[in-house]
């Protein structure tokens, strides 16, 4: 096996990974591993903006942003981290602009800002212009700008190298093992620090806005290395995905004035969030849509979970849509054959963002609070700082990955100065070699496509927007059965070079593990908070459940533990908008 040595290995080349690489590579020998080619990462699909209290159009304050983030997270947000997020967002946006990011502009030539769900002035009074945007391509521009800077600074990339095992020496990280797609060979990357920036895992659900690549590789590898994951029960459904396809229609449509309507043409958000209306946080809007559908006011009116509602942007006019939401208009033309300035868009909630992930502190260091994993870092969607608590606000994912990606990179640069590369434990690669050997030798008849479908359907039905004990138990049982059947999954590509089927099988294994802990953590939490909404426990229960979940997996058994929420400024209050 080829062995490489670096000071720092960053796994993932989305926003968090690239930002960390830019910082770390200033003083450390750094390489970025990515299973995709540059600029294919899902950061590029983020549309509506990056939140920062610049106050370019009206007064805004970082403490309002922090408050909104905490309340948006239903008070499960760690408050020190939320203040860091809000405060450092401002300079982060200027840094990106100063590096060439082409933000849209105000009339006086400053960075343009729009309203977004749950972002308010003066602690909830009314929606505020906080989302800094580049049309509806903000993530694309961030990804481009960061990669361009990586070119300028000669950051080293290993393209199409998929991480398949974390190497731990006790609680010290010693490196990572990756498969090179071109050859099928395993490579060992020894390093003083490893950072996971592998993005989301929304592909565990049937209807999702996530890319095919969003298979939670980082969290799954951490879990397999014995590291517990935090708050996995909180998974956000974005209210507006294209019906049947899940493709994201940015909240920016509502930020610009778009309105959700049911089959009677009613603006139903008036009932659910009288102040913020269509710009309430995503968990509430998604639930409102599901409630309308369940009560027969979806467009078909058949009360089935795949019914839909309409997002009406026709009153914005063609000019505004083409200028501020051009990609949305393009998606509507391509996939729905409609012009959103003429016809409303049929939408339904789509699995969008995992609030949970690898537990970290505000420097990106992986830690449960009690146990720190030396040399191991995580940032972006795969991590849980936790700044998003039980429900992330729109635009805060981009803030998260630039603020905490940067912080992790800076910390890595310091850490490696005094650190040595951990020795490789004996037989460190045995597990993954065995696993790949088994996949290659199995003559079993289980079909990858069927297992994928069944996992996604089970998670969608049982661990979706509204949850109850029966549904979650069924999903959990199904996932357990699928994990058994997975052992006999068939690999039909016998080749070594560019064997993407082998890597998809490994990805499915990652998703199955993450589905298991997601369903188990959800079943365990007997309350409703943020995106975790239980029909059998409809209320938030602070005395018993104002705490983070930590869930570990050993073979087929899960182990649950808890961690305190960091509450410094804002005491939990009922969450109304």
């Amino acid at each position, binding site marked *: 096996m080829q062995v490489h040595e670096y000071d720092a290995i960053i796994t993932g080349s989305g926003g968090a990974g690239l930002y960390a690489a830019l910082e770390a590579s200033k003083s450390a020998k750094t390489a970025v591993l990515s299973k995709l080619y540059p*600029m294919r990462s899902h950061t590029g699909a983020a549309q509506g903006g990056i939140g920062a209290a610049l106050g370019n159009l009206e007064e805004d304050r970082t403490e309002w942003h922090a408050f909104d983030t905490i309340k948006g997270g239903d008070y499960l947000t760690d408050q020190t981290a939320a203040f860091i997020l809000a405060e450092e967002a401002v300079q982060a946006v200027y840094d990106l602009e*100063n590096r*060439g990011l082409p933000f849209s502009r105000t009339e006086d030539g400053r960075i343009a800002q729009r309203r977004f769900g749950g972002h308010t002035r003066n602690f909830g009074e009314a929606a505020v212009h906080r989302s800094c945007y580049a049309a509806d391509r903000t993530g694309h521009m961030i990804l481009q700008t960061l990669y361009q800077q990586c070119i300028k600074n000669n950051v080293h990339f290993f393209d199409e190298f998929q991480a398949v095992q974390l190497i731990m020496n006790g609680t010290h990280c010693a490196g990572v093992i990756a498969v090179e797609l071109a050859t099928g060979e395993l490579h060992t990357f020894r390093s003083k620090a490893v950072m996971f920036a592998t993005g989301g895992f929304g592909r565990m659900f049937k209807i999702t806005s996530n890319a095919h690549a969003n298979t939670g590789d980082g969290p799954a590898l951490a879990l397999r290395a014995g590291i517990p994951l935090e708050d996995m029960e909180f998974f956000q459904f974005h209210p507006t995905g294209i019906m049947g396809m899940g493709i994201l229609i940015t909240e920016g449509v509502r930020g610009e004035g778009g309105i959700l309507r049911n089959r009677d043409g009613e603006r139903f958000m008036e009932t659910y969030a009288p102040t913020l209306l269509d710009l309430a946080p995503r968990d509430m809007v998604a639930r409102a849509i599901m409630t309308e559908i369940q009560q027969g006011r979806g467009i078909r009116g058949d009360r089935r979970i795949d019914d839909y509602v309409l997002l009406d942007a026709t009153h914005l006019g063609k000019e505004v849509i083409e200028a501020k939401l051009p990609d949305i208009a393009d998606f509507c033309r391509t996939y729905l054959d409609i012009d959103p300035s003429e016809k409303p868009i049929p939408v339904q909630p789509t699995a969008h963002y995992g609030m949970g992930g690898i537990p970290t502190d505000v420097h990106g260091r992986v830690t449960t609070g009690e146990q720190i994993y030396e040399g191991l870092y995580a940032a972006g969607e795969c991590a849980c700082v936790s700044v998003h608590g039980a429900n992330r606000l729109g635009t805060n994912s981009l803030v998260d990955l630039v603020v905490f990606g940067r912080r992790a990179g800076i910390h890595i640069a310091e850490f490696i100065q005094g650190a040595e590369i951990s020795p490789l434990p004996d037989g460190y690669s045995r597990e993954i070699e065995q696993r790949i050997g088994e996949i290659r030798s199995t003559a079993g008849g289980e079909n990858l496509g069927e297992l994928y479908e069944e996992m996604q359907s089970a998670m969608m039905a049982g661990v979706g927007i509204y949850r109850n004990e029966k549904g979650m138990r069924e999903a959990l049982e199904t996932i357990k059965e699928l994990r058994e059947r997975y052992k006999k999954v068939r690999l039909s590509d016998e080749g*070594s070079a560019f064997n993407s089927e082998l890597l998809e099988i490994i990805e499915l294994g990652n998703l199955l593990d993450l589905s298991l802990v997601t369903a188990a953590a959800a079943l365990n939490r007997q309350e409703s908070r943020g995106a975790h909404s239980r029909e059998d426990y409809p209320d938030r229960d602070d005395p018993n459940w104002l705490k983070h979940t930590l869930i570990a997996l050993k073979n087929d058994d899960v182990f649950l533990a808890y961690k305190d929420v960091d509450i410094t400024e804002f005491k939990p209050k009922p969450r109304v908008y």
Partner: protein
Amino acid sequence: MKITVEILRYNPETGADPAFQSYTVDAQPANRVLDILMDIKRNQDGSLGFRKSCAHGVCGSDAMIINGKEGLACKTLVKDALPEGETTIKVEPLKHFPLQKDLMVDPDVFFEKYRSVSPFFIPAEAPPKSKEYIQSRDQRKKFDDPTKCILCSACYSACPVLDTESGFIGPAASAQAARFNKDSRDKGLAPRLAVLDGENGVWGCENHFECTRVCPREIKITKLINETKREIKQFKEEKGIE
């Protein structure tokens, strides 16, 4: 409906010449070609090689030639790919790249040329402290079109110049250079002149407009190249460069 998908296949481990293989699948008119390829891979033939990620036309992974025209498999619907009354979709890898496997091609040459134009911000002046550069809406509009580029390389495959002039930097790299040249905050043409005006630079373009025709982001690439040519001329006249 039942459709036939003919895919040009190549296995690097046998090295045999590429050959078409036919698959029959059930498809809906609104299916993406990518959905069809995934269906084949997951349910009929796991060895089929292609790249994918976002599945809605923004990541640039799945450019290929579909019924003779470059496009993204996730942004081309079955009904759009099929000519009236036909039931066969022919899928081939992009041209002007070394083949890797089936629909996968080696993009290194494309990214090398992209990097050669210094596709990053070179500030004309130091940024204001803890603020943004001021840029008017009109100034921002001037370079909006090329910011849409997702580097999918559909244009690079479609460009007829590259059939014979393999050194030509190609449409995407030219458009990416224009993105910065036209940015009021950037130093502009000067630091990129040597490559753009060089032997493999924009002068290679012969205005076939194929890049513009196939671009899945509808970027007017040929126009950007012609504007760059004019800017180079003007720049050299002003500076008195021969």
